[in-house]
C-alpha cells in the first residue's frame, strides 16, 4: 500500500506544502517544531481536512484530488490514526474503544471484544479494560488510543506523537512493541514525533517540516550527515546502524562490530550519540568496549562544538570541543582511535 | 343532573333508532347534552350517542373540513351559519345577568352601576356570542362600558368574578346559576333585548341522518326542554 501524496493545505494564513511518499511496510517520520504543520499533514492524509490542491494516492487509488473532484472520506480510506489528544470515546470502556473499529468493520461483538482485550493486554492495560477514559491517567489513555488505531490493521497508520505522554520506562517498552507492530505490518506508516530517538528507531525515512514547508527529507543517516537547519542539527545527534546481535556483540551490516551493555539477539538497530564518542591519539586502555581506528573525513564548526565526520568500520560522527580539536591537532585524513562505551549504545530489535 | 323519571318512550313515529349518532355540541352544553344523551340511549336501546364538545367556531371549522358529524348544536347563530343555512332550529335562548361577588358587596342594581369608576368590569369579547349580547345591551341602555378585559368566553369571564379579580361581569344566567355558590346574579331590564340563541341542525351530509334527526327531535321534545330549563336556559 504505497502512499504517495502532494499535500497543499491552506488554513487561514497558514500554508502547508509537502510531498510525501511512503513505501509499503516502511515508516516515514515527520519532525518539526511546534506549529510546523505536522498534525495538519496527518489530518489531510486521514481525510479529515481536504486538500486545497495536490493529490493523495494510497495503494494506487486516488483518495483526494481536488482538481479531479476526487475525495474519499476517512471511513473508506482504511487509515488508523492516533490523535495527539487521544479522542477516546468517553462513554465507552477502554475495551469498547478498542473494539469500536473492529465492530464498525462488521466484526461480531464477542470476537471484536476478544481481539480488543488482546490488544489492551499488549499495551499493558489488561487490568484497565473496563475503565472509562476519564478514569485513566494521561499515559494510560494514550496507550488505549494506540491500541485502538492498531486494532483495525489499517492500510495507512498515522501516529501523532504516539509516545509523548508515556513515562520513560513504558516508553521504551511501547516503542519496541510499536517497532514490532510496524514491521509486522504491511501498510505504510506516517509518524509525527518530537523525539529524535523515536524517529531514528521507528522510521525508515524522515521528513523535516518547518513553518509549513519540508526543509529536509531522507534517511535518518542522510539527514544526520548533512543537517540543513539548526533545528535538524539539534535534533539528529545520533549515530545509527543496522546489524545482527548475538548477546552483547553486534555485527553491523556495513562492517564492524559494536558491543552493547544489554544482551540482545537477532537483527537490531544500534545508536549512540556523537557526544558519546571519545577520540584518542593512541590506543586507550580502559572500560570503553568499543575501540577502533578511523580517519577524519571532515570537520564542521557548530555553535559550541565541533562535529567530526570519520570513516572507518563503521563510519561515525563525533562531537568534541574546540579545545579537544586543538589538542589532538585534528585535520582531515588524520587517523585517530575512537572509543564508545558499551553503556552509551542503545540497541533495539528491528 | 339526575333523571328522576323513568325513560320516556321512543319519540317520533316509533321507528327504532339504531347505530352511532355523532353530535358536535358547544362546550357550554356539555352537562345537559351528556345527560340527554344517556336518556336518549335509554329510550332507544339500539342507539349510541357520541359527543364532540368544543368551541362552536372550532366545531364549525371541523365540520367544514369533513368531520363526520350528524348533529351540530351551536352556541351562536354566526357559527351555525358557517355550516348550514337551512334546517336550523333554535332550541334554547340564554339571557345576560350581571354577575357579582357573593352577597353583592358593591350593591349593584342596574346596568349603569357597572360603569362606576371604582368597579372593575369584565366582558366577553365582541367576537363571541356573550360579548355580542353585552354590546347590544349597552347599546340599548345607551351606555359606553369601560371593561378591563374582553374575555374569550363566558366561563373565563365568570372565573374573574369568582376569583375577585373583577367586581362585575356580564354573563349568562345559566352560568350564574351553575356557579351559584361563588357568585350572585343581578337581573337588568336591557337583558331582554340581548338574548343569545342556540341553534341546532341535522347536517345534510350526516352518515346517520335518521339517528341525527331523532336526537334533534329528542332535544326539542318536552323531556329535552325540561333538562335544559333546569340548567337555567330559557326555551323559545
Amino acid at each position, binding site marked *: 500500500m504505497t502512499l504517495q501524496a502532494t499535500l497543499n493545505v491552506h488554513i487561514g494564513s497558514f500554508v502547508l506544502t509537502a510531498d510525501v511518499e511512503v513505501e509499503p511496510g516502511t515508516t516515514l517520520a515527520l519532525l518539526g517544531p511546534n506549529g510546523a504543520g505536522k498534525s495538519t499533514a496527518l489530518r489531510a492524509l486521514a481525510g479529515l481536512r481536504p486538500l486545497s490542491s495536490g493529490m493523495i494516492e494510497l495503494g494506487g487509488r486516488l483518495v483526494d484530488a481536488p482538481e479531479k473532484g476526487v475525495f474519499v472520506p476517512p471511513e473508506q480510506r482504511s487509515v488508523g490514526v492516533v490523535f495527539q489528544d487521544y479522542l477516546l470515546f468517553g462513554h465507552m470502556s477502554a475495551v469498547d474503544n478498542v473494539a469500536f473499529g473492529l465492530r464498525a468493520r462488521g466484526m461480531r461483538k464477542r470476537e471484536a471484544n476478544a481481539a480488543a482485550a488482546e490488544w489492551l493486554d499488549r499495551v499493558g492495560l489488561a487490568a484497565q479494560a473496563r475503565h472509562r477514559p476519564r478514569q485513566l491517567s494521561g499515559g494510560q489513555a494514550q496507550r488505549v488510543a494506540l491500541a485502538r488505531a492498531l486494532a483495525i490493521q489499517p492500510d495507512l497508520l498515522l501516529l501523532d506523537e504516539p509516545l509523548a505522554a508515556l513515562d520513560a520506562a513504558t516508553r521504551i517498552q511501547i516503542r519496541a512493541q510499536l517497532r514490532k507492530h510496524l514491521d509486522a505490518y504491511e501498510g505504510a506508516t506516517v509518524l509525527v514525533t518530537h523525539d529524535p530517538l523515536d524517529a531514528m528507531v521507528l522510521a525508515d525515512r524522515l521528513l523535516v517540516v518547518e513553518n509549513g514547508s519540508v526543509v529536509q527529507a531522507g534517511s535518518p543517516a542522510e539527514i544526520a550527515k548533512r543537517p540543513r537547519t539548526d533545528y535538524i542539527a539539534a535534533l539528529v545527534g545520533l549515530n545509527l546502524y543496522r546489524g545482527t546481535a548475538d548477546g552483547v556483540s553486534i555485527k553491523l551490516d556495513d562492517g564492524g562490530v559494536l558491543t552493547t551493555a544489554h544482551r540482545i539477539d537477532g537483527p537490531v538497530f544500534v545508536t549512540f550519540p556523537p557526544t558519546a564518542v571519545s577520540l584518542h591519539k593512541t590506543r586507550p586502555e580502559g572500560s570503553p568496549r568499543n575501540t577502533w581506528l578511523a580517519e577524519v573525513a571532515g570537520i564542521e564548526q557548530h555553535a559550541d562544538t565541533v562535529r567530526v565526520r570519520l570513516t572507518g568500520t563503521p563510519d561515525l560522527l563525533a562531537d568534541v570541543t574546540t579545545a579537544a580539536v586543538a589538542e589532538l591537532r585534528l585535520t582531515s585524513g588524520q587517523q585517530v582511535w575512537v572509543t564508545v562505551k558499551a553503556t552509551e549504545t542503545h540497541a533495539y530489535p528491528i | 343532573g339526575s333523571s328522576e323519571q323513568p325513560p320516556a318512550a321512543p319519540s317520533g313515529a316509533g321507528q327504532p333508532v339504531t347505530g352511532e349518532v355523532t353530535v358536535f355540541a358547544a362546550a357550554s352544553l356539555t352537562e345537559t347534552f351528556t345527560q340527554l344523551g344517556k336518556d336518549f340511549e335509554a329510550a332507544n336501546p339500539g342507539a349510541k350517542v*357520541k359527543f364532540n364538545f368544543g368551541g362552536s367556531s*372550532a366545531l364549525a371549522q371541523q365540520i367544514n373540513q369533513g368531520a363526520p358529524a350528524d348533529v351540530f348544536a351551536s352556541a351562536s347563530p354566526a357559527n351555525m351559519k358557517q355550516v348550514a343555512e337551512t334546517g336550523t332550529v333554535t332550541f334554547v335562548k340564554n339571557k345576560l345577568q350581571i354577575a357579582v361577588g357573593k352577597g353583592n358587596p358593591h350593591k349593584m342594581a342596574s346596568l349603569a352601576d357597572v360603569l362606576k369608576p371604582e368597579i372593575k368590569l369584565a366582558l366577553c369579547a365582541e367576537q363571541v356570542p356573550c360579548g355580542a349580547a353585552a354590546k347590544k345591551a349597552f347599546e340599548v341602555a345607551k351606555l359606553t362600558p369601560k371593561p378591563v378585559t374582553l374575555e374569550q368566553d363566558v366561563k373565563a369571564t365568570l372565573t374573574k368574578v369568582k376569583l375577585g379579580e373583577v367586581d362585575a361581569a356580564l354573563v349568562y344566567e345559566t352560568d350564574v346559576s351553575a356557579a351559584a355558590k361563588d357568585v350572585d346574579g343581578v337581573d337588568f331590564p336591557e337583558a331582554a333585548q340581548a338574548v343569545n340563541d342556540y341553534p341546532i341542525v341535522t347536517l345534510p351530509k350526516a352518515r346517520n341522518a335518521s339517528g341525527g334527526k331523532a336526537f334533534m327531535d329528542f332535544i326539542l321534545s318536552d323531556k329535552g326542554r325540561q333538562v335544559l330549563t333546569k340548567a337555567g336556559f330559557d326555551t323559545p
Partner: protein
Amino acid sequence: MRAVRARVPVVLLIPAFIGLAFLVLPMVGLVIRAPWSTLVDQLATAEVGEALRLSLICATSATAICLVLGVPLAWMLARTELPGRRVARAFVTVPLVLPPVVGGVALLLVFGRRGVLGQYLDAWFGISLPFTTAGVVVAEAFVAMPFLVIAVEGALRGADPRFEEAAATLGASRWTAFRRVTLPTVAPGIAAGSVLCWARALGEFGATITFAGNYPGTTQTMPLAVYLALEQDPDSATVLSLVLLAVSIVILVSLRDRWIGTRA
C-alpha cells in the same frame, strides 16, 4: 464525601431561588385552593381514567415519533452543509409560534379528509387521521417536535465534532459514528429534549381538539377533559390538572434521574 466546592455564589442562588419560587408558587396555590373532596368522585369516573391513559399513550407515542424524525433532523441541521439549512432551521422553530388552534387548522388543511395530502390518504389507503387516536398523536407530535429538535441541535453544536472524525478514521460510516459516538455523547441533550417534548405533548390542547376532536375514549386526553370540566365546574378542572401534574411528576422523577443522571 464532603461537597467538593460547598460555597455557592449568592449572586446565582438568589435568582435561581426566585426562578424556582416563580414556577412552584402557582402550583402551590393550585394545591391549596383545590377542592380535594371532589378528587375521589372525579377519579372514580371511568372517563378520567381513560383520558389519563390516553394522554400517556399519545404523549409517549408522539415523543417516539419525534425522536425518530427529530433527532436526525437536528443532526442534519447541526452537522451537514446542505443548502437551505438556514431556512430549514427557521421553519423548525416557527411552529412554536403558531397558536396551537391554528396549528390544528393547518393540520386539517393538510391531513383532513379534504386536505392536501389527506384526500389521497383517504382515497388510496382509506386512512383518515382526524378524529382518531392516531390524529391525537400527529397533533401532539407536530406541536412538540420543535422542542426536541432545537434542544438536540443545541447539544450537537456543543459537542466536539472531532470525536466523529476519530470514529470515521476507525472505519465508521457517518451512520455508525452517529449511532455509536454522537448519540451517546449528546444523550443528556436528547434526554432534556425528550422531556420537553413529552411534557409539551402531554399538556397539548388546542391542536388536538381542533384536529382530532374531543371524543371520550378515542381522542379525549386529559387537557381536553380539563377544558370541558372548566366549562362546567372549574374546581374539578383544577383537581384534574393536579392529577395530571402528579402523574407526570412521578414519571419524570423516576425516569429522568435514571436517564439524565448517567453523566452526573
